[in-house]
């Protein structure tokens, strides 16, 4: 099984005719994702990789009964696209673009909560459920494998690194969820952990965090009643305060968001905290057997 995304989803791609949209639609189809169509204003009637293109989400849903959408439109148009999906009843929206204004993200997330919809991202690599052969995102297809580990990460490439080492270490994944590197994103560690807690197939979880904010500290509180082994790896140990480490969210500001307090909180909550990404597999092996 998997969390949030299964092979029963019906996925549309907003911005399907753009370079990114086309490329990743192809990758998603290759992986097995049930993509049913795409949206690109002014391009209705055309097709991308055999999928019908619509002018609006409304039209796409009428024809395809889609219930999930992945958004590839440029950041200035992302709020419009997200609301178009949400207002038309889409229940899972994956927001790939980076550089979406934080105020737009707040509006999107608040509205999604109101409508009982799930937003993943923005500035995320997406979500992938290897056992379901289904992904909504931009992650490479070949590094994942079906198995009992849930992964939740803030960062994309770093999560690839870890997912690949898990796969090579014999630990397949139920679902890998990218929260996104922005200050305001739809998911929290807690909301994703909660799904993993409920999922009987997920035996343990790997958290991939980083400096900035206090999402890890908040998650630590939740972990006390989580009941499954957790390995945590956090990036940004060597980062100086006041500097953004690529992600808009990865910044130690006014003394907040340091790795020290995060690791301390996670340790106290019983998570196995490792220092370097290549230590995750051994720690996981120990946590599960222990």
């Amino acid at each position, binding site marked *: 099984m998997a969390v949030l995304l299964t092979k029963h989803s019906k996925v549309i791609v907003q911005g399907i005719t753009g370079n990114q949209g086309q490329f990743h639609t192809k990758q998603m189809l290759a992986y097995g994702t049930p993509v049913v169509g795409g949206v690109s204003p002014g391009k209705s009637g055309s097709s991308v990789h055999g999928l019908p293109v619509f002018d609006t989400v409304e039209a796409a849903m009428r024809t395809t009964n889609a219930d999930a959408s992945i958004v590839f439109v440029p950041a200035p148009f992302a709020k419009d696209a997200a609301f178009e999906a949400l207002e038309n009843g889409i229940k899972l929206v994956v927001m790939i673009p980076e550089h979406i204004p934080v105020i737009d993200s707040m509006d999107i997330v608040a509205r999604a909560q109101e409508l009982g919809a799930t937003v993943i991202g923005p500035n995320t*690599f997406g979500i992938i459920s290897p056992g379901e052969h289904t992904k909504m995102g931009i992650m490479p297809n070949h590094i994942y494998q079906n198995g009992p580990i849930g992964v939740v990460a803030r960062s994309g*490439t770093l999560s690839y*690194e870890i997912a690949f080492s898990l796969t090579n270490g014999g630990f397949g994944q139920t679902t890998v969820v990218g929260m996104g590197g922005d*200050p305001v994103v739809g998911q929290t560690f807690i909301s994703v952990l909660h799904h993993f807690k409920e999922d009987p197939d997920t035996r343990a979880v790997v958290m991939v965090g980083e400096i900035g904010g206090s999402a890890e500290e908040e998650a630590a509180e939740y972990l006390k009643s989580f009941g499954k082994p957790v390995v945590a790896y956090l990036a940004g140990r*060597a980062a*100086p305060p006041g500097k953004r*480490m690529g992600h808009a969210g990865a910044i130690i500001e006014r003394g907040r968001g340091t790795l020290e307090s995060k690791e301390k909180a996670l340790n106290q909550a019983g998570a196995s905290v490792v220092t370097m990404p290549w230590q995750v597999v051994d720690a996981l092996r120990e946590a599960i057997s222990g």
Partner: protein
Amino acid sequence: MKQYEYLAKGVLREHGIPIPPGRLVNNPGEAAEAVRDIGPAALKAQVLVGGRGKAGGIRFATNPDEARGVAAAMIGMDLKGYTVERLYAEGKLEIEREFYISVTTDRNKKIPLVMASLAGGVEIEDVDDSKIVRQWVDPRVGVLPYFGRELAQRLGLEGTLAKELADLVVKLYAIFREKDAELVEINPLAVVGGHLIAADARLNIDDSALFRHKTVEIIDEGSDLEKKVHKIGLAYVELDGDIAIMANGAGMAMATVDAIQYFGGRPANFLDAGGGASVEPTAQALDVLVSMKPKVIFINIFGGITRCDDVARAILQVKNTTGIPVPLVVRLVGTNEKEGVALLEQAGISAYSDMAPAAQRAVELRGGGRS
């Protein structure tokens, strides 16, 4: 992106928040003129660093001649690494009390946060938590005056000050929304003659929202090197070590910096070459690394969207043009790994497939080691 004080003050004024009389001055003559019009004034260096006052960036002048002299001394001076180019001349206030108020985004709650304190005038981090009142904004509702009255009540303000604060917080939130602010802060929010006035103000605009604020002047606060890489469109932070680093993706770049330090090396920089970087910008970024004259260059790539052969081509391009006169360690796995590794091997560069030994090798080549 931080805004200069004079710009932040202008935004407050446009929104009807009281500020002291003031104007921007570019030279000693204008400073004299300003003090002639305004009266005794503070001359404040317009630089984007904190602790400006303590560093000598705020001085006073009671008459035009004094203003000319002070301005002559200040303009061109170095303030924490920044050259002072302009001053903001502002009428001196007889401050009775100093409060604090700001609007920011609460990342965990994913909604705006208003913070206020009657203990203002110092950095808010230095204020005891029990003296700070926090009130969150439902973005679907916004800030109406009652929100400000509740804030005033929590602070223990009454009468005119309570009323003025309620009015002010409505305007401050309007600025936060309209300007796509990361932070809008008034500190001190001064009491002068029993009324509130914004004695100093900070406004940081969300970089991602600049497309909505075309008239905002883009200020890159970075060092020259940082600015150079930012112009290529990549994230770059200068660190104080000697092992130059390039990785793809912010998380990987952070982890790479961490790994160098882990093995006892000192990273020279953070460089995210992007989640799907093509040959040209990668080569340009590598050029910058070479120009830093580091002891070692370490390239750490996990190819997802990024293609390993593209990265290899960028390396070879730089090697064959600028040249790479220092030891180079490359870790290359993922998409098109074989092609990339083959290209490098033809040029005599062997690539690692694991991150740990690669990072360790980079530190060894520096001649350091875990201390």
